């Protein structure tokens, strides 16, 4: 069936990321002192899910050939917000969760409006808006902390295990993919997002809604970053306005997206790939521990992986035969 050939080719980036992750994780689990236990998987899943959500956020924007440097700051801000309003009885805490997600949507929508109507370059717009989001986070949490009646039941449930084996965070990832990513991907807006990133000129000539596509890409990016922020609240029970941490998540989300087969030039890739990219990137960092290497080398190692990942995009240069094509 030649259909399979095309279907495989379309998902090649995602499948490579999946294979990479599985290989790395198998190595990790086999070398882990505690072995392949539900606990090891749960801890790894919780950490991985945080990055996976932010990486999915980054995917939406990168697909339009833009970039969201505020993703980590929205993540930080919504984490701080979550540490306040995911509190009280379970119904009020759930309402709080909704509030956190709404805040993320608002942040993303703000980015979208600035980029579309202000016509600012995504990078500068999101660096500046990131400063605002970080300021808000710091305003909420000048010191790390949590609400006195933080609802740890929800938090424990969301970070625990289902049937004693499957980490809830993976279930949440799966649910989000099913409920948001797949409908988005199959909507006309989703297709317009891919089209805009692939060739904005062709998208215009084909009469596609370019503004709507960009707006939803940024807005959904905000939403996903806030899901990540919420999850951080679940894991830590608290909120922390950590500037370096926010920046790190932005950076790692870009790395994860690249590893996940999403093209930084737009139009190619999938948020599912970004999830595996994120999990693989996390595992790379953790491998150093199980191999008893000095954990000090972790940031360097991750930096080098990131550098190599972004350099792979340069391979297409060898195909350019008219040097003027370099200066579009």
């Amino acid at each position, binding site marked *: 069936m030649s259909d399979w050939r*095309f279907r495989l080719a379309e998902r090649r980036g995602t499948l490579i990321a999946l294979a990479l992750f599985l290989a790395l994780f198998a190595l990790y689990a086999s070398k882990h002192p505690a072995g392949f236990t539900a606990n090891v998987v749960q801890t790894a899943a919780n950490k991985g899910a945080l990055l996976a959500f932010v990486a999915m956020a980054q995917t939406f924007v990168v697909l339009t050939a833009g970039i969201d440097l505020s993703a980590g700051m929205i993540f930080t801000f919504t984490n701080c917000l979550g540490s306040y309003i995911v509190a009280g009885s379970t119904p009020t805490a759930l309402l709080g969760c909704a509030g956190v997600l709404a805040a993320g949507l608002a942040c993303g929508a703000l980015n979208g409006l600035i980029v579309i109507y202000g016509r600012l370059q995504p990078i500068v717009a999101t660096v500046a808006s990131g400063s605002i989001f970080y300021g808000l986070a710091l305003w909420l949490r000048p010191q790390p902390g949590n609400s006195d009646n933080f609802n740890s039941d929800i938090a424990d449930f969301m970070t625990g295990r289902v049937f004693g084996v499957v980490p809830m965070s993976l279930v949440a990832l799966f649910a989000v993919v099913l409920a948001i990513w797949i409908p988005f991907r199959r909507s006309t807006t989703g297709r317009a997002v*891919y089209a805009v*990133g*692939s060739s904005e000129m062709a998208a215009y*000539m*084909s009469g596609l809604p370019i503004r709507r596509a960009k707006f939803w890409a940024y807005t959904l990016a905000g939403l996903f970053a806030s899901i990540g922020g919420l999850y951080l609240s679940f894991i830590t029970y608290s909120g922390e306005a950590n500037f370096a941490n926010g920046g790190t998540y932005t950076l790692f989300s870009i790395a994860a997206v690249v590893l996940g087969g999403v093209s930084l030039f737009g*139009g190619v890739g999938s948020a599912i790939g970004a999830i595996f990219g994120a999990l693989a990137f996390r595992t790379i960092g953790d491998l150093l521990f199980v191999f008893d290497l000095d954990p000090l080398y972790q940031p360097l190692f991750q930096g080098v992986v990131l550098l190599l990942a972004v350099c792979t995009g340069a391979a297409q240069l060898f195909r350019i*035969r008219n040097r003027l094509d370099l200066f579009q």
Partner: protein
Amino acid sequence: MEFAQPLLRMEGISKRYGGVRALEQAGLEVRGGQVHAILGENGAGKSTLIKVMAGVVAPDGGRMLLEGREVAFAEPAAAIRAGIACIFQELSLIPDLSVADNVVIDSPPRRFGMIDHRAQRRLAEEALARAGGEDIHPLAPVKDLPLSRRQMVEIAKALARKPRILILDEATSALTAADVAKIFAVLKRLRAEGLALLYISHRMQEIAEIADVCTVFRNGRNVATYEAGTKTLAEVVELMIGREYSHAFPTVAAPESDAGPPALEVRDLRWAERLRDISFSVRAGEVVGLGGLDGQGQRELLLALFGVTKGLSGEIRIDGKPTNIASPRAAKSKRIGMALIPEDRKTEGLMLPMSVRVNLSFAALDRLSRWGVVDRDAETEAIDEMVRLLAIRTDGVDVPVGSLSGGNQQKVVIAKWLMVRPRIILLNDPTRGIDIGTKQEIYALLRRLAESGAAILFYSTDYDELIGCCNRVLVLYDGAIKRTLVGAEITERALVASALNIAAGAEAGA
């Protein structure tokens, strides 16, 4: 049928780009069940007319009536909704999406709000079949298809919109004869179904085969509309050329001597399917023209000589010595002494917001600076000389070059390169879109430069210029030199005929 209301009627359409008029009071009537061919030379206004019709550009004046009702399209989407589908030259397909995605891109079938892939595939397959592209897999990404297949997808995409008017702008230029035959079968069926088809092509044989009605454009106007087959090829060529203007050109002098090696010699130049076995030479004092239709490899040839392209094969000799030109920087070095007046002065020739001074001296800074520090006195002196020599009309040299008129901007581009003191000058359509007065000055300048010993290679889309300025003209077709015209052979008739690649002698009868 003759007296029925036309499906689309355009009246008095005008459009200017900056100071250049692309359309001047142009009109057209399009009827259902006809293939209407549009003919004209380069820059006659055909593409602008199509763009107006498809909502890509807004006209400055005039009106469009669709079945008698006045319409105006703010964007391509509006034209599509009105039933006008346009096939551009590989512009509107989204490379990373699949064929099926592209075919139904503007209104994919949906179920429960989501795109229904199965229905989409069915629609795409139907449209592909109607367009004669049954062999294209609907799941293949467009970027992996060869150009000819992409053109089929474009047609399928247009048909999926169920248009009433279908515009094909050079839609067959990338296709093989077999593919063209397929498409013609499709077009004939569509005509029978009552669609209005607008067909733009430079291939006269194709037009003779498919068109019912022809309209000839010249200088932004429709000059004649006639039923296909009622005019000879010679008459059509005459209509396209017109007899409107003839410039005074300086007399073309023969180069001083044939002794010694030519300043520039090219042997068997090939590049990426765009240039095929190009061989020619230019002597000092000679002006050699490049002719042919737009986009036949002239631009690529100039860029290749100037060191812009990679993967070039063949040999370039400067003063008889084989030379490798690796970059524009190498090309302008003393050893080679080459200059290129590029195609688009706004994006390739000038930095518009920067001052006349900076633009003028920019290419020659190596000569005007010491240890990287610009010698401002020498710079000012050289600039003043150039402003005088070319009579550049500017309000001082510190105003942005973008504030100058088009003609004066072009003079700045030329002056900028003369400051490098080149021996070989390549020009890419240097008079496009500038006023007649400045054109005359440029012709005189070219002649002076040639007389002072420069070797000049000159591409122009204006046949009058080639006739008036050149010692020889090389006519390119599909990346190869089809004909070389020397001296008195350079006539408009010969240029047009060889540009259209009509077999020699065919231009007389047909």
